[in-house]
């Protein structure tokens, strides 16, 4: 599993990386989780804050660097 992680790190050598798919949002390399409610999640990334607005937003998995959010996402805002 470490090999896969290392390869991901090598291939995705970016400051951040955001995936959106099937009512899911996967954010790599976030710094802090500032706000967490059913309707709003705010993440701090290196250069901006990512504000996710929607309904029934839940965190499915998270660690120091990545987070998987599920729910009905209505908007994403980048606040610099």
């Amino acid at each position, binding site marked *: *599993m470490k090999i896969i992680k290392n390869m991901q790190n090598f291939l995705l050598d970016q400051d951040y990386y955001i995936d959106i798919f099937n009512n899911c949002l996967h954010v790599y390399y976030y710094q*802090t*989780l500032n706000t*967490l*409610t*059913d309707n709003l999640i705010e993440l701090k990334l290196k250069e901006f804050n990512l504000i996710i607005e929607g309904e029934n937003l*839940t*965190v*499915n*998995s*998270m*660690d*120091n660097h990545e987070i998987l959010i599920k729910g009905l996402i209505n908007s994403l805002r980048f606040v610099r």
Partner: protein
Amino acid sequence: MKHYLKIKINTKDKSKVLLKLNNIGVDIKNIEYLREALVCDILSNDLKRVKKYLFSYKLEIIDDKGFYKLIKELKKNILLVVGLVFSVLIFLILTNIIVKVNVIHQDKEIRQILTDALEEAGVKPLSFKKSYQEYEQIITNIKNNYKDKIEWLEIEVKGMVINVRVEKRIITNQTVPKDYCHIVAKKSGIVKKILTRKGVALVSINDYVNKDDILISGEIKVGEEVKDNVCSDGEVMGEVWYKASANIPLEYQEANKTGKWRFNFLVNDGLKDTLILKRRIKDSEIEKKELFKVLGYTFYIAKEYEVKRETKSYSTNEAINKATEEIFAKLKLKSQDTDKIISQKVLQKSVNNGNLYIEMFFSIEEQIGEVKEYTLEMEDDRVDKVNN
């Protein structure tokens, strides 16, 4: 290996708990939101920290995850697991053990000989069964060792009992010295060499002889009078002729290795090879190397080599050479006494539906004499017939 634990944290404000966990940098997976609780997977190493930071929350470990869950379950059911493994072992041992060896024959001596021979080969009560090839080898060895006593032998494995069926060799045609015999021609041909050890040669070199003609007579004559009768001995080589044909397809397939290969494992149950892993190369040739044998099964490490099959065609000369080789092989089977080919000639050659048909004529020097016994009455009858 990471050891994840499934934990349940009782809380109404799940977001707050998650933020707290995020602040302390805990790796959280598979978060489930219950009405008044949060269920998630965390690393066992993080448990101490989580307990420390969430000391005011009621936290309980629900389950282990993955491999550790399996270990936990196994530990919980250790008696069942040990019992199961033990019974499988016992079953394997019992199904592969011999409890009785039955030698089926009415002759006590044969039964004793076979029982001893089988015991020497390791086929005895309370020993492990052998593989099909090993039994075949044992049968061959016993047959070779007791050529004069055993005609046929079969080992049948029936559950835990080994039934050995045997047929005793009855030697009827003891080689008794023959009284009177001629050397007669077994084939028509031209005599090329004669070697007389005993008897009187009736033919000369370059004489044409028909089948059953006497070549070396057992009758010793002085003038017209038969003085003595012996069993003639000698060799007569003759030139005989054969016609043979072969049909060779002009197109053939050649398999070339592309260089791509994959590892696989193979097991042989004594009858056929079976690949353990799924075949990863569609058109391949397999090379195997034995790893170990257990309970009659042989395990091999195999290499699947990808091959590319190409359809090639013979040139006319190549096809003729191939057909000639095939005809030679047929000829060898037909005439085992073949010494040398004196001459050969292509009689017919034609190409039909992509096949080359070739018919050849051979002139071969081979042994044409064979011993034929006679009695004095038979000889008198023969002489009478010739005179009439």
